[in-house]
């Protein structure tokens, strides 16, 4: 089973999650794999929207917030 599925199913161990989070910081292909797997799951559950840029917009706001707090 691929890592995206194992992550979203809660099948990773704590040690594996640590490694995966570290990889996510610089592995765009892994980020794509996870977001695509989540999109497939959402679509099957009836939530049929593309990302619409929410992730990037939200994360940009969070970074601004973090910068302001520092």
């Amino acid at each position, binding site marked *: 089973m691929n890592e995206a599925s194992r992550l979203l199913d809660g099948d990773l161990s*704590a*040690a594996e999650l640590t490694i995966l989070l570290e990889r*996510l910081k610089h592995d765009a292909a892994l980020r794509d794999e996870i977001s*695509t797997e989540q*999109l*497939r799951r959402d679509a099957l559950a*009836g*939530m049929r929207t593309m990302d*619409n840029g929410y992730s990037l917009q939200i994360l940009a706001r969070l970074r601004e917030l973090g910068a302001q707090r520092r």
Partner: protein
Amino acid sequence: MNGSDPLGDVDSALVARAIAGEEVAFELLVVKYQRRVAATVRRFVRDDRITEELTQDVFIRVYLALASFDQAGNFQAWLLTIARNLAKTYLRSPQNRLDDQPRESAAEDTIGSSDRVAPSPEEEAMAQQLFGRIDAEVAALPEVQRTALLMRELEGLDYGSISERLAMPVNTVKSHIHRAREAVALGLRELLGPTRDRRW
């Protein structure tokens, strides 16, 4: 539990990592729940632009309140409660009433395909192609794989419950679902290459 056991509740683990300062852990929670939050907000405000703004606001509030989340609790339930409360607060404001009325229904947690949020024409076309392909790929699966996959993704059943309903071992259920996911993923590969819809 030791370090090699499955986490089970990955959300609580991600919350803990986010509180500890690992931003990427919270990013994962955003990727995981953005559509569910948007669909929840959309039921109240019925406006694409406001849905988008409130969805962002929900995640900002959640981020700021992470330390107050009971990690023994259900993150999704907590998140969606915040989403509903924010949408209701928005509607209570006199200047925001417009002609919107909350339309919280008994079937609130059954998310329908009408819960769409601000697609551009290009995204609309892409979405139609993509979701049509998903339907086709699921329809083409062997019946046992399709049944197990839909029990998991559509009904939200855990592997144990699916195992009981299909009268087969949990590992067999996992194997069917894994094969089904792989088959659907393979069918979508040309539509979801690394240059398409990269959002994160």
